[in-house]
């Protein structure tokens, strides 16, 4: 008997002990509020008491034309915001990383740091700074365009419905382009020299080396960057709020899910906050992000080929 007890693997307490702090903190600040929000979206407030209404709030959000118009407008804007990041931020990030990892580039540490710095700036500084740069009254953008004779190209971009969202997306791209750059840079550096030397022996150099050897090897990193961009963009709020305010002007053309949620949940000016409808929007955002991440994890990531060295 004694021998069998010794042979049986001991219960490994240390795993629970070491995991506990992270699990407890994560549960307290993420999981409980998440379920609280989901639960809140199933209730409504009448005379300061909560009443269970099932999915009525979701019916209002998607069925009532006033709510659904705002919601689809915000979702559409959010999709455009994400699209700009995908076609501008990530290719530029990859390009910069490819240039930086070039062995003969001088001062690469300087460029790397400079390009990364906006990422650590506060969004308030970024929003306010760009608002000033683009200001038609005091901004340097009109006078710089004037200096090269292109004043006619200037427009008050942040104030025009047609341009405001794209302008803000590009500002956000400017701020965060350092992140894909760093991740791809790290992936490029981890490609073993033997692989590249073998390629050179086979006569694959320069651009074709990038397309045929390096790009397939960094595809998993690009996948991760895409999903990070997706989650960050659909949770975005701060830049729009600091540049355009909670009403996301002009005429709601820069309204994304985050600002729509803020306005509904906390209220604005004479509008009193409605925590239940706010939670409903937050839940909808959660499901959208969950769906996006699931599509990536189950359909795309499993098909990506990985190479072991």
């Amino acid at each position, binding site marked *: 008997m004694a021998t069998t007890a010794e042979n049986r693997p001991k219960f490994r307490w240390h795993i629970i002990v070491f995991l506990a702090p992270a699990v407890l903190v994560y549960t307290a600040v993420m999981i409980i509020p998440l379920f609280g929000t989901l639960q809140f979206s199933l209730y409504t407030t009448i005379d300061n008491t909560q009443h269970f209404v099932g999915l009525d709030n979701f019916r209002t959000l998607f069925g009532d034309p*006033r709510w659904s118009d705002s919601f689809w407008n915000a979702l559409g804007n959010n999709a455009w915001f994400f699209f700009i990041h995908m076609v501008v931020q990530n290719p530029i990030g990859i390009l910069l990383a490819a240039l930086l990892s070039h062995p003969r580039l001088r001062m690469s540490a300087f460029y790397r740091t400079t390009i990364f710095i906006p990422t650590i700036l506060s969004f308030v500084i970024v929003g306010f700074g760009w*608002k000033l740069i*683009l*200001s*038609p*009254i*005091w901004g340097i953008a*009109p006078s710089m365009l004037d200096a090269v004779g292109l004043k006619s190209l200037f*427009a*008050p*971009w*942040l*104030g*025009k*419905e047609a341009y405001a969202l794209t302008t803000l997306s590009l500002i956000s791209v400017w701020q965060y382009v350092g992140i894909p750059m760093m991740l791809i840079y790290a992936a490029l550096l981890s490609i073993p020299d033997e692989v590249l030397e073998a390629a050179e022996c086979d006569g694959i150099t320069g651009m074709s080396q990038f397309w045929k050897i390096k790009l397939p090897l960094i595809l998993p990193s690009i996948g991760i960057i895409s999903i990070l961009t997706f989650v960050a963009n659909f949770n975005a709020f701060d830049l729009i709020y600091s540049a*355009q*305010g909670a*009403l996301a*002007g*002009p*005429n*709601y053309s820069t309204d994304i899910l985050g600002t729509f949620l803020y306005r509904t949940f906390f209220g*604005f*000016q*004479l*509008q*009193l906050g*409605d925590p239940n*409808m706010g939670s409903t929007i937050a839940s909808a955002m959660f499901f959208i992000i969950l769906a996006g991440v699931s599509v990536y994890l189950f359909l795309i990531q499993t098909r990506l080929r990985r190479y072991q060295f």
Partner: protein
Amino acid sequence: MKNQILKGMLLASTILVSAGSAFAEDVTLTIESWRNDDLSIWQEKIIPAFEADNPGIKVKFTPSAPAEYNAVLNSKLDAGSAGDLITCRPFDASLSLYDKGHLADLKDLDGMKNFSPVARSGWSTDDASATFCMPMASVIHGFIYNKDAFKEVGVEVPTTEAEFFAALDKIKADGNYIPMAMGTNDQWEAATMGYNNIGPNYWKGEEGRLALIKGDQKLTDEAWVAPYRQLAKWKDYLGDGFEAQTYPDSQNLFTLGRAAIYPAGSWEISGFNKQADFKMGAFYPPVQKAGDECYISDHTDIALGMNAKTKNAEAAKTFLNWVGSSDFASIYANSLPGFFSLSNHDVKMEDALAQDFVSWRGKCKSSIRSTYQILSRGTPNLENETWNASVNAIKGTESPEDAGKRLQDGLASWYKPQQ
């Protein structure tokens, strides 16, 4: 046993203390407020003036930060630790305090007789059966202009719309000044200093506002659409790139002397007096035709109420009656030019620009912002929608009729009298 003795001693001491204070008649009143900017004015001017007239009552002014005020006040009231006197925000914020039993009804106070029904409307129940705060001050809307610029270009102060646009045309043709300093980036100026500034002339002030609340008028009526039509004409007179111009941009454009006219609220007065080094004047929103009666937006902004659970009700009422007196009105209006007394007293003010503004009360009929009372309780919120519609009208992206229809549909979706 020990506990009993202790309790007895505590009880005795409280009786002694209260007896002592009753004997000395020294009551201390505490005022809750969000106006921490005004702390020195209260401590140096207002409170000493009151204490000199009312020996035995001491007053303490204890403001908190404006953004936190509503939350702090609510929790203090719920906990029973709030001060005796409560500074009131207009309309629904204070109405909900009254409905919860935190504010006392002050309708029968003598001081209340000095205020018109419009002045009291910000702090009355919907049927006006109870008034729970003593009105302190309002802000008046109009236009501030650069006197030097007007002289240089050679335009007179306009009184009718035709004159107004003629003046704007002349300033524009002259080319030295931006005719009007306003932007649409922050949105609220277009509604507050645009729509609700010029609107009362069209919907005849209180008459139209109350008819809208009753459901007798609609936002699609000519009186409510016409202001948008005028706003649409403003576009040509605003500076280049007004679409991205913010509120501080507009203030700076005007005080730097680059713009001739500024659609304003009177709260700008003290700031503009400090910043601008040219002479300024003000004119009320021009009427449609010469001889028309003029209406101004004289918006109720701040008032003082009494905590329903105060132990010093008599002293608090004495103070509130004093707030309704002409002494208080004159001290307050002169210390804070641009915040005008709501009372019927004839208040002498020294600031010339403030005098301009307040003189309109004699010539024109006063009203308040159309969206503030009752009509912004539901979703979609009429005030926020009005910001958006006013901006759209100025930029020309939505026709005045469409804007009116959209707001009417929104209001009718939740407001019974409009259905």
